[in-house]
């Protein structure tokens, strides 16, 4: 097994995800413990499988990041004023303060 719990915790941090049930705590501790073990085990199996790429001979091979053949020029960067759209966009926000998206204080 190449992956341990601390690696999984680090990856969860990068992914902006929590361990299952970690914010609940308390009475479900045993359940949470089990959920963490399952996650480490699953993730480990997946990463171990990916090690098959070690057998590929890629000496001198350029990476292929996109199969795009006919790239198009980007469109001009022109701001568009559409008040109706702004209203519709703001309507989607879970929390607003006036016309601003609201987040918890950061300092």
């Amino acid at each position, binding site marked *: 097994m190449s992956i341990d719990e601390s*690696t*999984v915790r*680090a*990856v*969860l941090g*990068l*992914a*902006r*995800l*929590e361990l*299952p049930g970690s*914010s609940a705590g308390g009475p479900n501790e045993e359940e949470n413990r089990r959920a963490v073990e399952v996650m480490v085990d*699953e*993730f480990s*199996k*997946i*990463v171990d*499988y*990916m090690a*098959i*790429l070690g*057998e*590929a001979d*890629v000496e001198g*091979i*350029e*990476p*292929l*990041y*996109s*199969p*795009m*053949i*006919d*790239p*198009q*020029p*980007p*469109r001009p960067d022109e701001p568009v004023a559409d008040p109706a*759209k702004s209203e*519709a*966009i703001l*309507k*989607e*926000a*879970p*929390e607003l303060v006036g016309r601003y*998206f609201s*987040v*918890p*204080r*950061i300092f």
Partner: protein
Amino acid sequence: MTELWRLDLGQATLGLSSRRFSATELVSSALERIRETEPLIGACLAVLEEQALARARELDEAGYDETKPLWGLPIAVKDVFCLAGPPTTAGSKILANYHPVFEAAVVRKLKEAGAVIVAKTNCDEFAMGSSTEFSAFGPTKNPWRLDRVPGGSSGGAAASVAAFQTAGGLGTDTGGSIRQPAALCGCFGLKPTYGRVSRYGIVAYGSSFDQAGPLARNVDDLARLLTVIAGPDGRDSTASSREVPDYRRLDPVKPNELTLGLPKELWSADFEPEVAKILAEAKERIAAAGATLKEVSLPNLRFSVATYYILAAAEASTNLARYDGVRYGFRDGEENELVALYRNSRTKAMGAEVKRRIMLGAFVLSSGYYDAYFRKAAQVRRLIWQDYSKALEQCDLLLAPVSSILAWPFGAFTADPLKVYQLDMMTLPLNLVGAPGLSLPAGLSESGLPTGLQLMGRAFEEPRLLAAAKALEGVLPPVGAPSFRST
């Protein structure tokens, strides 16, 4: 006028153009069929009844317009395409109430061609899955056997078309998500060349893989739909401006004019016996019709599952970073710290499979692992691309199975995510190389389930693909209509 829902797109167009029935009658019939079959299969996340009827009446008032190739035709689209009306959820709780302010390019094109969007179909959350079991809103059932999955991720679209709810639907294919459910539900599905169709307004999963395409009950109808949705819209820089041919008017090809390459790595997979039997019979029929079948090799194919899952997960983790509970979508309102707000909103509203792929993506992109996984996978992707190009130097198109097993019982693999990834082995290579592919029914098993074959071609050779598929369609046994058996 009864049972208009039985008509395919071509037949319905004939009826509409000769004024045998109206768009309103046709759309009403589709809505009735949806009402009747939805309790059995659950293919739709939203039925746009009022919107669709209003649109149909509008079309009828204006009168039939032969310049609009899909005039009056009811179409269902996978719930990853943004459009006004019901929420665009992508099968996720995090977007359960999301109303996009823009419309997907392909939806706009469908509407401009006169189509009437009648439903938004179910899918695995963010199109990540092969069974539709990962939809946050419950699974769709296979219309052939209600105890079986319809495949995925466009399982709702495939089940809907197979159940005659509509004669045509749109899905997306990132690693097989059109072709595999089409095969498991006994309909036709086309994944166009990467860049043939604009991705504007499609909820993104893997941006160098995602491509929208049609599902239908015959090859001609795929061509009708592709002719409408292909081409750039000026808002997706990866969409090609190459001329879009009229795919409906192709020079026919006879089976005996075809040389088809059979990738031995795909044909030697471990097949479920009933699948092996159908495939062997199908191959015999194709050979008997005069096609030349030739073994070819894709030597690096054994790396395709690892390559795909590393690259697609990396792209997914980047694309899905936008769901943070701030600007739209679900927010965990209890948090009073910013990063905790992100983490809890995402953790509470995303499903296990989506989290797994985001984690895998974050892992392979992280410092220390980037070269060994992400860059290496991109290099292997080029090897697979080279294999694919080389194989196609020896034949017109490749012919391969779509799935090694029949539609499986619900829950069969949910505890083993890696096994499900490996099941995608037949379909992923095409997305890695960005080429077009078409899945068509190959026959029915004794247990009453369909499976499929796929044709794969070179980039932008959809005309050849469609013409060859049409030739094979006449050779392979039609699967007919599903029975909605419960077991």
